[in-house]
């Protein structure tokens, strides 16, 4: 499949999945997975980062639009989209020449695990910190981050295990 087409499809698929299915799960009354950030993990690595940052903003905004949260998802998504390159350099030791050949699927599981877990926790923490919007109830923010991150990671790894496709 054409790469652009594939990622356009992935964008709308993850957005719809998040808005219409995952936002309504509410495990134990309040725990939701936020799987749409998988788009940011899978997006191809390029030297030009305009596309990734801007598309992440649109994805976050799309989720915000349907959950009455202002710009919380947009903020967190843009944040991890910007710092993705930094963490790829940190965990995978990639040089600029390696960028076109970088695939999350062909990397060792341990490194991918570290990469995904860091970005997920970062994203979820920002999300719940802004959703809480005060310095009170910090323990609630950390607990929410932890539970949701576990849920997201379980879905992400099981999902990527089932749909193994080389992109």
């Amino acid at each position, binding site marked *: 499949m054409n790469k652009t087409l594939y990622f356009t499809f992935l964008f709308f698929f993850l957005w719809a999945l998040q808005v219409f299915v995952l936002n309504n799960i509410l495990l134990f009354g309040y725990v939701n997975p936020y799987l749409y950030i998988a788009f940011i993990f899978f997006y191809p690595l390029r030297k030009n980062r*305009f596309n990734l940052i801007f598309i992440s903003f649109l994805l976050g905004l799309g989720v915000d639009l349907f959950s*009455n949260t202002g*710009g919380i998802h947009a903020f967190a998504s843009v944040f991890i989209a*910007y710092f993705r390159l930094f963490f790829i350099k940190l965990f995978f030791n990639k040089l600029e020449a390696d960028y076109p050949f970088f695939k999350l699927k062909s990397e060792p599981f341990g490194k991918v695990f570290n990469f995904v877990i860091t970005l997920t926790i970062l994203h979820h923490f920002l999300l719940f910190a802004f959703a809480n919007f005060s310095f009170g109830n910090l323990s609630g923010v950390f607990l929410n981050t932890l539970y949701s991150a576990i849920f997201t990671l379980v879905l992400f790894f099981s999902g990527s295990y089932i749909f193994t496709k080389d992109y």
Partner: protein
Amino acid sequence: MQQIVYFFQRYKYFLLFLFLEFISLSLIFTNLNFQKSKFLASSNFFVGGIYEKITNTKDYFRLDEINQALVEENNRLKNQLEGTGVTLTQDSLNTNQKFTYTSAKIINNTFHTQFNFLTIDIGKQMGIDSEMAVINGKGVIGITDHSSNGYTRVQSILNKNTRINARLKNTNYFGTLSWDGKDYNTVQLVDIPRQAPIKVGDTIETGGKSTIFPEAIPIGTVAKVNETLSVDNKIDVKLFNDMSNLKYIYVIKNRDKEEILKLENLENE
């Protein structure tokens, strides 16, 4: 000049990042401001339309439960009517009523965040505007926030910014109802006078001291009374409504609202 171009080239991603984060932050701030959030509210045409379609499908599976609730409410109202000895007439010209009720359906409901909103399927076309009361047969649900032509966003009672005037049933001890963001079944009543004889199990209802809510709409029962002395004298109130399971609601419009507000503003000047 060369320096500036060089600067932009070097930091272009960082500047884009800052720019987008700034937009997101301003959206977050306006969203928490009552009535100001026009752009990203679920009351807009696109989002409201999609939610309405989804709800229409979902509702088929809950018809039994919804009918049961409506019949119960009708039954209660008929009994009340019997007690007052008033007979209902079909005369629509008799307009000395102060509040008018409009029925609507909830098409989207959140209750798990700190700032919760609902979306209902009527809007400006039905005369709905901001700052109107939203209730159902069991009690208070929220206040309308922003409406488009066909949809309205409601600021839920489970929103840290919501303040509702409330009182102990059949007395004149008033307080303010707010929510601490923890449990979606429990809200807090603050600033009620210390001499008020409050016991666990007492009923709390709206006070009617604002132009939004009529008097004596049920809210909940007292779940915990503060034993120690504290400044705000906080009381936990368990809601009559299960806020996670709502369907049909009424929007209450106050016919005298403009007159009252005009009068109050006159006094302030």
